[in-house]
């Protein structure tokens, strides 16, 4: 057991190191100079003022240092929990910008991922071997998974937001409110949350349902199922065993899907102008905000790694073979 997790942790550590390094590198390989574009926005008339300002900000962000030194400083600051100052939202610290956006993204992603996984698997298992459902609902699932998030999101925003007028099309909560502890505010939050959630949920749901349905059919046709049936076991029992076996690849799939969902959230948040990390990434790239981009990716990388680790643990819990393997090693 300890060895298993020790090895996993080492791998995660290395992944983290590599991811952070790449994440530090990429914005610096992008063309253009963030300070120059920041200064050009200032619309100064006099060249002397421009020069003074440029020198000042380059020094402030430490961009005048050699690359290796910037890289070391970056790790140093990171270990102190300092993510730097945002260039785009100057002079807000990056940590502040991210902390304000994180609740929205997590509130969107966590339920969307877990619920779609749970509901998709249940539904897929249920639909398998029920011809009527299989022929009507699953094709819809195919369409849903093949739908790009953005397209579905725009359709939802247009249909339920603008035409039907039931849901708002932008923002994290009503523009008429201030955050407070009241049912009204919670309702507003939920209402603004619903469409982005739905678009993420639907796309992921379709994928899980199809996967599960295929797995169940495969398992029901496996030898052990036939054997159980021949022994006269009730159908319910056979299906339960089939489900347990079928769910294992789905758990692995969940780990793989996490990264994709983060990207999906990005697009969805942009479409609904939802104030989470996704909208921030886009703006950070557009404005060449190195520090903000680093901070967000750091957060995402950490999140995905933690989630994968959790799934590793879950795997140990649900798959006896993993435990058996560990026992043999230890």
């Amino acid at each position, binding site marked *: 057991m300890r060895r298993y997790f020790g090895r996993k942790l080492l791998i995660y550590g290395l992944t983290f190191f590599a991811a952070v390094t790449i994440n530090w590198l990429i914005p610096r390989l*992008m*063309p*253009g100079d963030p300070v*120059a*574009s920041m*200064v*050009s926005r*200032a*619309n*100064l*008339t*006099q060249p002397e*003022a*421009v*020069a*003074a300002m*440029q020198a000042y900000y380059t020094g402030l962000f430490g961009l005048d240092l050699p690359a290796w030194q910037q890289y070391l400083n970056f790790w140093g600051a990171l270990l102190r929990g300092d993510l730097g100052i945002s260039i*785009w*939202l*100057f*002079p*807000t610290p990056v940590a502040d910008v991210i902390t*304000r*956006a994180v609740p929205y993204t997590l509130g969107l992603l*966590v*339920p969307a991922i*877990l*619920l779609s996984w*749970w509901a998709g698997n249940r539904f897929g298992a249920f639909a398998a071997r029920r011809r009527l459902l299989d022929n009507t609902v699953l094709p819809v699932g195919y369409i849903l998974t093949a739908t790009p998030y953005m397209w579905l999101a725009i359709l939802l*925003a247009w249909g339920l937001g*603008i035409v039907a*007028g*039931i*849901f*708002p*099309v*932008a*923002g*994290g909560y*009503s*523009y*008429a*409110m*201030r955050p*407070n502890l009241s049912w*009204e*505010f919670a*309702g*507003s*939050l*939920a*209402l603004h949350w619903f469409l982005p959630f739905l678009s993420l949920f639907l796309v992921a749901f379709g994928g899980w349902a199809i996967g599960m349905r295929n797995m169940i059919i495969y398992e029901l046709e496996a030898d052990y199922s036939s054997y159980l049936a021949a022994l006269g076991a009730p159908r319910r029992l056979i299906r339960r065993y089939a489900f*347990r076996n079928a769910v294992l690849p789905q758990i692995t799939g969940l780990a793989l899907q996490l990264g994709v969902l983060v990207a999906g959230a990005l697009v969805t948040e*942009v479409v609904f*102008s939802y104030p989470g990390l996704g909208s921030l990434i886009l*703006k950070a790239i*557009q*404005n060449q905000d190195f520090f903000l981009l680093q901070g967000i990716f750091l957060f995402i990388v950490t999140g995905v790694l933690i989630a994968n680790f959790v799934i590793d643990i*879950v795997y140990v*819990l649900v798959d006896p073979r993993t435990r058996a393997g560990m026992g043999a090693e230890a």
Partner: protein
Amino acid sequence: MRNRWRVLTPLLATCLVVTACTSGQPPAPAVQSSAPGAAASQAPAQGGTGAFPRNETLYTGGTQWGAPANFNPIRNWDHATGTNGLVYEPLFLFDPNTGTFTPWLAESGAWADDTTYELKLRQGVTWSDGKPLTAADVVFTFELGKMKTVPYANLWTFLKSAEAVDAQTVRFSFSKPNYQQWANALYSRVIVPKHVWESRSEEDVVNGVNDKPVGTGPYTYHSHDQDRVAWVKRDGWWATKALNKDVKPKYIVDIVNSSNEVAMGLLLQNGLDLSNNFLPGIANLVNGSFGVKTYYPEPPYMLSANTAWLVLNTEKKPMDDPAFRKAVAGAVDTKKIVEGVYGNLVRPANPTGLLPQWDKYVDQNVVSELGFTFDQAKAKKMLADAGYKDTDGDGFVENKDGSKIQLKIEVPAGWSDWMESIRVIAESAKAVGVNLTPEFPDYNALVDKRSSGKFDMMINNERQLSNTPWMYYDYLFQLPIQKAQNTVNFGRYENKKAWELVQELDGKKPEDEAGMKEVLSRIQRIQLEEMPAIPLWYNGLWSQTTSSVWTNWPSSAPDAPKSAPTMWRNWLELGGILTLTEIQPAKG
């Protein structure tokens, strides 16, 4: 196995319950809050929850593209919408339509002699913390410019001193009176309170968040979040008594843009009263029954705000040849851009590029003698006459020395209207035999190329409408050429004579219209003969309004207000603030 599932079940169940109780809100109150404040208009007594009653709130958008990060009036390019104008105020307002200055914090101002300007402040103006505005505040504000990183530091290259003569009088002495620039500073610089700012370091002045802004204006800070900033009206704004003007909305909530599509959606849901976004196809909404209005009910729909120039890199061949530049000017099918790309939301530019508000400064004789018109046959002939011939038979002309001409025209990726426009321009160029291809680099990459002069052609609209065409000629002709040209003369055009004339123009008093025109005529002659950059079209002061909550928006209708309907930065002092005093609540 069952036991293990029990571990996960509560987790999922919790999620379910959470979603169930949040998404399962009774629809009625939820729908109300979806259209911002619809709930509030029915139940205005929500004060306890800090809501903004719909009928007292003005929702604006189109200025802010990122979370409000600072309220620092010195940072007039990225402070939260309304910091300058709603909270901090300038000495004068400038009305671009009539070309007149309106005393604002100042009561009057005049040149005592050629190098001394005397300013009288209004009596009874108070800061939002109750202290009176005095001459010391004005002196302090201008002296902040002695810090090199303050954006108006350049004033001190010709301003010698600013002193408070008494509590209401300030005297400015100049080493070289640049009257045009000074007039610009009088309305574009806002005054900050000395008693709040004097203890701040340069670092703090230039980079501070200034989260508790103390100003003289009609509004004070209320609250902000990453996608909005809210201002609340304050009691005792001086103009209510002095000018009998009052801002009508109790609250102003400015919504941060994420995209123009979202702005369009909010506008259609009546969630925005004033949108200053560029919304392609807005003409359809204006002509349809969507309740969306623009300044003009017909083309061009918008007031003009700035000129889009085709900037040519005059350090490169063949753009270093005026004959080539003039031929390109005649070849560009601007009409096709105006109609095809913009659907008539913009106007084609005058050959001088001066905005319609500056029409009186255009010397029509010079324009009719030297101005260009769209005529591709003539453009072709101009190229041939100047020695650009197709010697290798590939359908494109070559340089005079026989080398190939392969040029690129660039605009930032994602700027869809400009991207379409340069496709039209490239087609136009090809029609007269110039090999020009459109390219769409990343914005920051283009900024790099632009300042270092590593481009062939691009579109730029850096300079906005202001009190003086000097701004545009400074943009076209400023010398000397630096290693990095960050804000002006991107084409690196060098003409000492023209630059001298531009400086001479700066030395003309704004009221000396004849003197200005005389210099302008000489500048325009050089401009049209040399064509350092080609004016294309006038971008609009993008502005869409709805009337479900606020009416009497500025428009071209005879009895409507004529001030600028906008919250754009640096536009509140060009009349945006007056718009807020003109609008009326729709009901009651």
